[in-house]
């Protein structure tokens, strides 16, 4: 039994049971990611935009306190990002390649990359909770209002100029939320699924859960992984877009220029501690 999203099978007791996500959806995810890139490129290039400035004016006194270089990501935060990026690309590559017809011993690479991702996420949670402003990355009511305003303006409708961003713009926060939700679905299920394969870490136990529970786990893992293909493509696309490169450079070198800061951020919403150069 099959449907668009999941593959069903029959267990030895003759019961219908979930097997995994439909692997054909990998093609859909790639098509969606690539389609989004093309559509967004055309939108930016050809869709008429309002002539007025993209953001409301900022407080001159606060702006005057912004140094020439503003620390945006500490070394620890950047290390997390790039380790996570490497493990994510490895995970998606090793999971997608066999579906796309490239056969190799993928499973070991996959679970090792999965463990690297898990460790880096645990590290990130501790680091963000203890040393960073934990709530700065989470969406709030102001972000929702701003998203609506920006959407209206992008569609050519009249709306007040939105305030410039705090440390993280609303689209950054949206992406972070999507990644967190995907990780919540894929990481715990992946860790449990390691019980079904040969690793030096666990004694295999395929009976840890019922067939139904395993099926749900495989489906969640697969669907979230497929979703991450689209998310990753869009993330890489924005990272290389000319108007976003200042953010990418910030993630590589750790800081941004005063000019970029004032163009995109409101110094009253992202208050710079001029004594702490490693602020993030």
């Amino acid at each position, binding site marked *: 039994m099959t449907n668009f999203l999941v*593959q069903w*099978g*029959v*267990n*030895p007791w003759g019961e219908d*049971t979930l*097997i*995994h996500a439909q692997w054909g959806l990998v093609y859909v995810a790639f098509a969606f990611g690539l389609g989004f890139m093309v559509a967004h490129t055309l939108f930016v290039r050809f869709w008429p935009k309002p002539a007025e400035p993209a953001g409301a004016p900022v407080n001159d006194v606060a702006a005057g306190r912004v140094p020439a270089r503003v620390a945006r990501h500490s070394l620890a935060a950047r290390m997390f990002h790039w380790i996570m990026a490497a493990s994510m690309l490895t995970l998606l590559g090793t999971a997608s390649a*066999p579906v796309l017809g490239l*056969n*190799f*011993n*993928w*499973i*070991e690479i996959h679970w090792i990359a999965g463990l690297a991702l898990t460790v880096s996420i645990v590290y990130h949670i501790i680091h963000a909770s203890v040393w960073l402003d934990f709530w700065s990355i989470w969406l709030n009511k102001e972000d929702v209002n701003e998203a609506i305003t920006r959407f209206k303006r992008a569609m050519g409708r009249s709306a007040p100029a939105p305030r410039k961003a705090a440390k993280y713009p609303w689209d950054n926060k949206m992406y972070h939320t999507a990644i967190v939700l995907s990780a919540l679905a894929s990481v715990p299920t992946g860790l449990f699924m390691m019980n*079904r*394969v*040969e690793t030096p870490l666990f004694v*295999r136990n*395929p*009976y840890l859960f019922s*067939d139904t529970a*395993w*099926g749900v786990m*495989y489906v969640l893992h697969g669907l979230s992984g497929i979703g991450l293909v689209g998310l990753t493509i869009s993330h890489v696309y924005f990272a290389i877009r000319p108007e976003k490169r200042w953010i990418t450079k910030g993630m590589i070198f750790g800081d941004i220029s005063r000019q970029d800061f004032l163009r995109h951020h409101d110094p009253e919403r992202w208050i710079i501690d001029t004594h702490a150069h490693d602020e993030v």
Partner: protein
Amino acid sequence: MAIIHDVMPVFELFQPTTIDDTVALLEKYDRDAWVLAGGLDSFDWFKDRNKRRQVVVDLSGVEALRGVRKATDGGLEVGATTTLTDLANDATVKTNFRLLSEAAALVASPQIRNQGTLGGNVSQDTRCWYYRSGWTCYRAGGNICYADTPTAINREHAIFDANRCVAVNPSDTAPALIALDAEMVIRSSSGERLVNARNYFIGPSTDITRMTVLQPGELLTAIRIPATWAGADFYFEKIRERQVWDFPLVNIAAALKVSGGTIRESRVVVNAVAAHPVRLTAVEEALSGKPRNEETARMAGDLAVQGARPLAHNGYKVPLVRNLVKRAIRGEAHV
């Protein structure tokens, strides 16, 4: 659970007479096509109704796929649909590549060898009964190996290279071909490619749903055996439950070049211990330059089982492999 039916599901049957026509059909029907050689694997699947294809391409009318031909370099080219009986009885094979004729002669029963082909024997699917019973195990596209659970009946399953699936390759001729450095000739609409026999077989870590590198649209047309090992010291032994007719519990194919009592070069391959025949390269390297004696045989046997990971009920395969390797190095007469 498999239900044996008296009749097979309906399919469209094609009986081409040339390799080109066969390849064209395989290209046209791609994943919907099933290649039928001797039928000994295929009819099980069809009658159990666990695998169905819209189209079956019967190779029995393709004359070019049959027969043993001498190559100019002193080697042989064996057509993929050459029967195991013809292979076992071929004078050149018996003289120069006794290893292969012995392996072919030990496949199943005389009736099966009369019908079964070399191509079919090396390309057959695994005999894991959980898989062949139609359950959605890993190999069938599912998410579990029913043979690798604490209560599974896995006496015949893998001790090497298990990766989620613990099924084994059941071929008797496959280890012999690997030991002889054979090459598999594969045709498709895009041309011909040669695959070393060792690389022809794949394990679950590479592709859990297939036993060989053959892709839809491809046809194994022949097996080329170079002269490299012609006339070497050969040893083939097959251990099976029922002596008259059974798949191997373990088999071994060894080829040794010995001069002055010293092993110069060797090939040692065991099968039915993993999803692919296992060439024991560490053993081969260790044997190089060693005298062919009891001490070397013991060393080779111990080395052969390093890394073995038996399941709940197949621990006996570890000493079995160890002793078969010893016997192969000693060159003992078969019991």
